[in-house]
C-alpha cells in the first residue's frame, strides 16, 4: 500500500566514503544532531505539559538532514529554515533559549511573541525565518544570492522544502530563476515520504524529485538523509559548486517522518512496516555508531555528551520558563521599519 515501496531503494553511501570531513566537523555534526534530538524530545514533553503555545511539528529523525546541510554553509551564507528544521537553526548557532522562549510565546523570543514555533530569524547569524505558506521562501533565497552578487560577494543561500512543497508553483519558479541567474542557491528537499497524510505517489510521478533538476539545467543529487556524513558531503559539494559559479543545486534528502505531521496527529495512515524499516536507520544512532567505530568518540564520551546536552537544554528551558509573557499592547507595535529595529542581513 505504501507508495514509497514503488520507488527505488534509497542510496546508502558506504560508511567510509565521505571524502575529507575533518574530525572537528564530525564532532560538530554529532553535537548538533544530538542537541536537536534532545530538544525535540524535550519540546514534546513541554507540549504535553501544555507549555508549548500552539502546534508542534517535530523534526524528529530529520536531524541528519537539517544539521548536515546547515553545517556546510559559511557565516556569510544565508539560511532560510522551514518548519521541521530545528536542527538547521541549531547548527547555525541560534541560541537554545530563544527557541524555547519562542515555543512558549515569551517576550525573550527573537519575535517577542509575534510568531511561533521555528519561525525564527536572526539577522546577526544570517538566518531568515519562514512564513507558513510553503514555497514562499524559495524566491526570497534567490534574491538574497543575487543581491550578494551585485554587492560583490558570493552569498550561498539554502532553504528547505518537504516532498509536499515540491508541488507548489514557486518550486518551479525559483529553481528556474536561480538557474537562469546562475546564483548559488541550494534547495534541500526533505523527502520524508508524506505531506501531512498524503504519500508521495499522490504527489509526483518522477522516480526521484532530484531528477527534476534536469528540467532546469541544474545539478540535482539524492542522498540518504539519515546519514549525516553523506548529507554534509553532498551539501558541501553543492556549496562549492555555487562558489565556483556553477549555479544552484536541488538536493533531495531521503528520510522518513517517524511521528505525526504534528504532535496532535496519530498518523494512522503511515504503514507500520515502513516505520519499522526506518527505525533501524535512525540518524542519531547512525552517526554515533560511525564515530565510535572510527574512534572519534569513546563510549565514555557518549555518556559525557549526554550529561552536557541535558544540562544545556535544562538551562535553556529554565530561561524560557522564567521569561515573562509579552505586554498585550505590544501587539500594536512593530509593523513599520520606522519603529525599529529595521535590521538587515550582512
Amino acid at each position: 500500500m505504501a507508495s514509497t515501496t514503488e520507488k527505488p531503494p534509497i542510496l546508502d553511501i558506504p560508511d567510509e566514503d565521505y571524502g575529507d570531513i575533518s574530525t572537528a566537523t564530525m564532532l560538530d555534526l554529532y553535537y548538533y544532531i544530538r542537541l536537536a534530538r534532545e530538544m525535540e524530545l524535550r519540546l514534546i514533553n513541554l507540549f504535553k505539559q501544555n507549555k508549548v503555545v500552539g502546534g508542534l511539528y517535530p523534526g524528529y529523525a530529520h536531524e541528519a538532514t537539517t544539521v548536515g546541510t546547515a553545517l556546510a554553509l559559511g557565516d556569510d551564507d544565508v539560511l532560510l529554515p522551514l518548519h521541521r528544521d530545528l536542527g538547521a537553526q541549531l547548527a547555525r548557532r541560534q541560541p537554545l533559549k530563544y527557541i524555547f522562549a519562542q515555543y512558549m510565546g515569551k517576550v525573550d523570543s527573537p519575535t517577542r511573541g509575534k510568531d511561533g514555533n521555528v519561525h525564527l530569524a536572526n539577522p546577526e547569524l544570517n538566518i531568515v525565518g519562514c512564513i507558513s505558506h510553503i514555497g514562499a521562501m524559495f524566491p526570497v533565497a534567490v534574491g538574497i544570492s543575487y543581491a550578494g552578487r551585485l554587492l560583490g560577494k558570493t552569498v550561498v543561500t539554502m532553504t528547505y522544502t518537504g516532498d509536499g512543497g515540491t508541488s507548489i508553483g514557486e518550486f518551479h519558479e525559483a529553481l528556474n530563476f536561480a538557474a537562469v541567474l546562475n546564483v548559488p542557491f541550494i534547495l534541500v528537499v526533505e523527502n520524508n515520504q508524506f505531506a501531512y497524510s498524503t504519500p508521495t505517489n499522490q504527489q509526483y510521478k518522477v522516480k526521484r524529485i532530484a531528477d527534476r533538476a534536469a528540467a532546469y539545467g541544474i545539478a540535482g543529487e539524492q542522498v540518504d538523509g539519515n546519514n549525516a556524513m553523506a548529507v554534509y558531503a553532498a551539501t558541501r559539494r553543492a556549496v562549492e559548486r555555487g562558489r565556483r559559479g556553477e549555479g544552484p543545486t536541488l538536493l533531495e534528502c531521503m528520510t522518513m517522518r517517524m511521528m505525526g505531521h504534528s504532535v496532535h496527529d496519530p498518523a494512522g495512515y503511515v504503514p507500520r512496516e515502513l516505520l519499522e524499516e526506518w527505525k533501524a536507520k535512525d540518524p542519531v544512532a547512525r552517526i554515533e555508531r560511525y564515530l565510535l567505530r572510527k574512534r572519534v568518540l569513546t563510549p565514555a564520551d557518549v555518556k559525557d555528551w549526554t550529561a552536557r546536552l541535558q544540562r544545556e537544554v535544562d538551562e535553556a528551558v529554565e530561561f524560557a520558563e522564567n521569561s515573562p509573557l509579552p505586554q498585550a499592547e505590544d501587539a500594536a507595535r512593530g509593523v513599520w521599519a520606522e519603529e525599529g529595529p529595521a535590521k538587515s542581513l550582512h
Partner: protein
Amino acid sequence: MPTTTYIDAISEGLREEMRRDSTVVCLGEDIGVYGGAFKVTDGFIEEFGAARVLDTPLAESSIVGMAIGMALRGLRPVAEMQFADFISMAFNQLVNNAGTLHYRFGFKVPMVVRCPSGGGIHGGPFHSTNPEGFFFHSPGLKIVAPSTAYDAKGLIKGAIRDDNPVLFMEHKFLYRRVRDDIPEGDFAVPLGQALVRRPGKDVTLVGYGSTTGMSLEAAKILAEEGIDAEVVDLRTLVPMDLETVIASVKKTNRVVITHEDRRRGGIGAEISAEISENAVDYLDAPVVRVAALDTPVPFSPPLEEYFLPSAAKIATAARRVARY
C-alpha cells in the same frame, strides 16, 4: 505647455535614484533591453547595465519574492509589474511575506513594486484594474498613488528611500495626459502627506490618482453653479493623512469620496468610517462615494465609461451633497 509628462517624471525619478544610490536595482519582465511595456525604464540598461536593470523570467510571485530577498540583503529593489493586474500573482509574497517581516523578525524590507494601474484605456478586465484595495487592507505595506507629474517623481523617490515595502500605483491613463513643470534637481515627496489641491468652503472632494484630476474638473463645473469645492489629494493611501481629510470636512461639512477602485469594501468606505468616527458632529449631509462598479472592468468603451467614475459623476454627487 508644461514640459514633463507623468510617465517621464517616474522615469526621471527612478533614473536619478539609480544614479544617486548604487543599491537601487530594477527588476521585472521586459524592462531591460525592451525598456518596459510602457517604456518607463527605456535606456536604463545602457546606463546601468543588465545586472541592475534585470530582465526576469515571467513569474510575478518570484519577481516580488526575489525583491524581498534583495531588500533583506542590502539592496533597494524596484520591481515592475507589467500591469498592476498581475500583482495578484504576487499576493502571497506581499501580504504574508513582505508585510510581516518587520513585525515578526525586525527586518527592514526597503522595496518598491511599481504597478501600472487603472482604466480608461480599454484594456478590458485584466489590464485595467486598481488593485490597491486588496493591499490597503493588509498590514505592513505602504501604498502611494500620485496624481501629478511632480508627485510621480517626488513619490517614486520617496518610495525608494522608504525602509518599508511600498506599492507605487502609477496610473496608465495619466501617463501621457498629465504634465507639470517640474523643478530641476533632487526632490522627494515624503510619504503620508495629503494635499489640498483646491481650497473651497462648500464641499470636500477626496480623491487620489486619476480621481484627483476628475475632482478638480468637477470643482470647475460646480464653481459655475456657485458651489465652492475643496479638493483633497490623498497622494499616499497607507499611511493615510486623515488629519488633512478630517480638517477639510470640519470646514466644509460635506464630503464626496472618490476612487477608481471598486466601491464595495473599498478605501472610500474606510475614509467614510473614519469621518463618522471622528467628525460626525460636523456633517451636514451623508458621506457619499463615487467609485467604480462592483463588476469586472468591462472592455467596450461605453461599458467602461459607465463603469468608471468621472468628473460629471463627481459633480452630480457633490450637487446632491451640497443641496442636502
